[in-house]
């Protein structure tokens, strides 16, 4: 039983990371229809920036406080997201190129980020110190590492914020309007260019935070981006690309299937690596709208 509850905590924490990456996809995908595979590399970038701030990696004998990393990572990733949008997606949209052109250009961006990280930080994994130490924490019957509870807490705050943004603010409505019908939204006076820019900035910030949060569990490693990009996208497809809640639900479903399957199903552990791909295929073919259907135009 204790074992089971611990697995619940660990799966919830992993699910929250997937959900954050899924949210980063969603923030960009909803208004622009662009699937940005580089969000995985943005998460990796967030992880490396965190390590650079928190450990004496770049500035000897200088270990920055965690709140600085918590502020700097989203700030830097927001700027990087803006740069990527301004340099690749915006000119393509202006030229009237297809969405696929943007997606392919972002695959180039993915490689640029990954190789850039390798050049800057080397190919070895860099451990990232957990801000609350290595001690175990227990909430009632649920016990786990402090970092896992931090991940869960921050994720729920971010999702609450995202939900409020989409449901309660005029800017959220504008995002939604652009997602439903770009042209009609533009005719209603919504600034498409600004919405696109904000989509990439916010996507970058969320992805960077996901990387910073996961880095104490996985270390910062230059190969971490692509797997998390695939898992995050799978989470998004499971939950449904239309709604913020979908990203969270999809992330949790994916992590629970992965971890409980690996623990309790009588198959070789290597094969459990295939779970996300099986789920992705099943949902794409059988339920492409995901578990939570997108809202219809009202």
């Amino acid at each position: 039983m204790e074992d089971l509850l611990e697995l619940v905590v660990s799966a919830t924490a992993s699910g929250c990371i997937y959900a954050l990456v899924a949210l980063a996809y969603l923030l960009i995908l909803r208004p622009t229809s662009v699937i940005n595979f580089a969000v995985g590399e943005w998460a990796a970038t967030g992880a490396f920036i965190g390590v650079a701030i928190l450990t004496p990696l770049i500035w000897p004998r200088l270990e920055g406080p965690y709140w600085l990393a918590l502020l700097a990572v989203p700030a830097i990733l927001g700027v990087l997201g803006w740069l990527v949008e301004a340099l690749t997606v915006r000119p393509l949209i202006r030229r009237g190129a297809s969405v696929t052109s943007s997606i392919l250009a972002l695959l180039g961006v993915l490689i640029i980020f990954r190789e850039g990280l390798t050049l800057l930080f080397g190919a070895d994994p860099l451990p990232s110190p957990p801000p609350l130490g290595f001690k175990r924490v227990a909430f009632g019957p649920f016990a786990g590492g402090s970092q896992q509870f931090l991940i869960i807490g921050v994720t729920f705050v971010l999702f609450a914020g995202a939900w409020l943004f989409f449901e309660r603010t005029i800017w959220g409505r504008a995002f939604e309007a652009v997602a439903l019908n770009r042209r009609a939204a533009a005719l209603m006076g919504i600034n498409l260019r600004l919405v696109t820019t904000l989509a990439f900035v916010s996507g970058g910030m969320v992805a960077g935070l996901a990387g910073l949060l996961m880095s104490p569990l996985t270390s910062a490693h230059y190969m971490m981006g692509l797997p998390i990009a695939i898992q995050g996208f799978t989470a998004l497809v499971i939950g449904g690309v239309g709604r913020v809640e979908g990203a969270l639900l999809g992330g949790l479903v994916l992590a629970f299937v992965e971890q409980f399957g690996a623990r309790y199903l009588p198959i070789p552990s290597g094969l459990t690596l295939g779970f996300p791909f099986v789920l992705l295929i099943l949902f794409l073919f059988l339920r492409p709208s995901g578990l939570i259907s997108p809202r219809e135009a009202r």
Partner: protein
Amino acid sequence: MRGVRSTLVWLAAIVAASALAFWLGGYATDVYRKMLIWVALALSYNFLFGIVGQVAFSHFAFAGVGAYGVVILAHKLGMPFGAALVLALALCALLAFIVALPSTRLEGFYLALATLAFSQLVIVVISEGGDLTGGTGGIANYRLPSVFGYAIRGPWYTVLLVLLVAFTLWTLRRLDYSAFGRACRAIRDNAVAAAAMGVDVRRVKVQAFTLTSTLAGLAGIAYAYIDNVINPPVFGLENIFLLLFMVIVGGSGSHVGAIVGAVFLYLAPFVLEPIVGHGFLLVFGVLVVLTILFRPSGLAGLLNRRTARGTT
């Protein structure tokens, strides 16, 4: 008259590319052979991506199915080589057909995601196949058996690879200039309009996917006998990105572009690595972004201004 001339051009190109095989040394032969595999893969990938407009990430997975298929059938299960070859190709075609049926229904980039999941599953399966697939270490210690008493060795194997590229190019060009090829380009440019003109969009997509994936399988089979070693990472995601970049930089939709892109990006690291080390991949990323932004017709468009206007 034109027919005779083009036959002569083909023969001259094949003879020249084959003659090179007898002149190159050991290391250069290895480089040359792998380059020919890349060219063959880029040609078939270009047909699917550049001419039918379908972004799929499964090309290397099918090369893997072909390579593993023939090696397992011929060397693990002891089948006659000819039968193993035919069966491995049939397996590729069948699998591609099964993947294509539901996948081609998916809109836009979702095909890429479904095929990405499929190709990752293939990697998981061959990595976990135990003795049959050799697990993550792959399979080694086998060699191309003699067929009817003829053993194809040394430069003659390179000649075989030249013929593989020629066969791939010839097949794809024939298709491109047929009604099928026009239907493919119509689907790429506007699927709805193509359907309105009487093109059976689903059918053409499934046929194109199955055919190009089978050609990938053939290239995979040829690859299996270059080093006489196969292992999972070769058929993974890293290489499919590189293949996509080759086709984009070369100029998607153009056969010449696919060849030029493959040769250029395959050989570039040999020049770049001494200068920038591993950073050549960074250069590739920049190159791809610049190509998409400023010259969608790629290197082929630079070579031939007329194609540059033809494809946008």
